[in-house]
């Protein structure tokens, strides 16, 4: 088992090295011995010196960008020159607030839907129609009604986190084993205590699965939302660096988005493990 683990790790490292090598070779500056001195002069005048920065950036430039950004993550020199930590803070803040609001709404309503088949049937058509709407489609409406780009971003996160949580909570609550509810009934357990000590722990693994899906979607959506509303955040950073044609920075941001998304997902996996039980 241990051996297998090392083998897979080794393979990962080899694949990564291979990827970097191919990338490096593919972006090597082409030898252009045919160019005349005048042409070289002209290129230098145009800001395209011998370094040939016009093509896709080679890996060492990404490395340089990573070092530059990580060496000063908290810099703040105006709206177009903020450190990555600050941008991440803005994005995570929006995701956190929108996600928390979604929990506050999804848990009680999900509980109600799960407990009452009547309510389930009554609300199901609305959920089915609202669920498949791309959260970004709400953006114009949000901007028009809320009139604040920051709050609109939060609203978009709220609306995209809501559905998986709501649906999973309702499903988990509706499928609590009848035996456990009967135990609670024969013990004359009061409704609130029953909800907190029997139904909630019984449905917790399903609810957390919903939250994990929601968080995944929220992290996908925040980048797009920030590209639209602008101002701050990793999404805005990507868009801004694209406008600067600074591809190494864009690639650095992509890496950061991936790593942070993975960390968020791992956190929820940990929480899931905490509340799961074996029957």
């Amino acid at each position, binding site marked *: 088992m241990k051996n297998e683990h090392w083998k897979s790790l080794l393979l990962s490292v080899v694949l990564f090295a291979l990827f970097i090598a191919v990338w490096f070779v593919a972006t090597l500056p082409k030898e252009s011995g045919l160019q005349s001195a005048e042409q070289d002069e002209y290129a230098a005048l145009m800001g395209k010196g011998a370094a040939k920065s016009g093509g896709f950036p080679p890996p060492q430039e990404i490395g340089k960008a990573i070092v530059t950004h990580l060496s000063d993550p908290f810099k703040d020199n105006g709206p177009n020159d903020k450190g990555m930590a600050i941008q991440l803070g803005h994005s995570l803040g929006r995701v956190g607030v929108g996600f928390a609001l979604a929990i506050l709404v999804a848990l009680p309503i999900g509980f109600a839907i799960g407990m009452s088949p009547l309510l389930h049937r009554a609300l199901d058509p609305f959920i089915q129609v609202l669920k498949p709407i791309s959260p970004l489609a709400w953006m114009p409406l949000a901007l028009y009604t809320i009139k604040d780009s920051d709050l609109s971003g939060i609203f978009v996160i709220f609306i995209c986190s809501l559905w998986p949580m709501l649906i999973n909570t309702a499903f988990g609550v509706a499928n609590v*084993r009848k*035996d*456990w509810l*009967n*135990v609670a*009934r*024969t*013990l*004359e*357990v009061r409704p609130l205590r029953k909800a907190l*000590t*029997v139904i909630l*722990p*019984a449905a*917790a693994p399903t609810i957390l699965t919903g939250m994990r899906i929601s968080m995944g979607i929220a992290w996908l959506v925040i980048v797009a939302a920030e590209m639209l509303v602008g101002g701050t955040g990793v999404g805005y950073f990507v868009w801004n660096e694209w406008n600067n044609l600074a591809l190494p920075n864009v690639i650095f941001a992509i890496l950061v988005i991936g790593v942070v998304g993975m960390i968020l997902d791992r956190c929820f996996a940990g929480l899931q493990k905490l*509340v799961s*039980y*074996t*029957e």
Partner: protein
Amino acid sequence: MSFLIVENLAKSYPGNDAPVFENVNFSIVKGEFVCIIGHSGCGKTTILNALAGLETATSGNLIMDGREVVGPGLDRGVVFQGHALMPWMSVIENVKFAVRSRWPDWSKQEIEAQAAKYLEMVGLGQALYKKPSMLSGGMKQRVGIARAFAIQPKMLLLDEPFGALDALTRGTIQDELLNIVQATAQTVFMITHDVDEAILLSDRILLMSNGPRARIAEIVEVTLPRSRTRHDMHHDPRYYRIRNHLVDFLVSRSKDPKPVDELQPPVVRPGEDEPGTLPFAA
């Protein structure tokens, strides 16, 4: 004076003309152990659930301790067929959950002590902090029994508690159950499919005819002395008379029981005239 009186109980489901069972009449006195035997589909579990207050009968009366049974309550302890332990709670937490429901004003220490006492009674003193998933089927069912006993109910309802256990485990837990029931003078109503289990544990056995329109066809009084054990029971000739009587009923007579005019089913005492090897029942 009977502790529990069941009068003309009937249950029918919408869409079905014939009721599952009807005219079910019996009573249980305090401290009595009564088993009910019958083929699947005769409504045994429905009767038990009606006693537990988890289901309502279509008609008839249920009177326990002078009061009508409406809804579930802490005066009845239920041991479920599938043990129904909460898997996210440890063994002792499962029992404490019941104890806290019964005595909400008790201190933490009192609740803990009561739960531990009953778990020790079923031989689980070593497994208090284990999760149910780490226990064998027999141990899980023991926790279920401890949970039901720990709230000190007026009556215990057991729905085929040993159905899923192997024969050896079943025997041990039957002995333990017998000991606790005798020590606490508990009134018990139990469903079983096992004829030997019924003879070992009960004072009286209710025999149900097949459904639909099932009813209690006979009440068999166990003529063996209360001091019977699994080890000596089968040496007594009366045991075979009772056993044969029960098996005969299940094999042939349950399909088409003799019609009874009066609502109270006839009482039979197989082996009554037999000179037993065990001291005769008082």
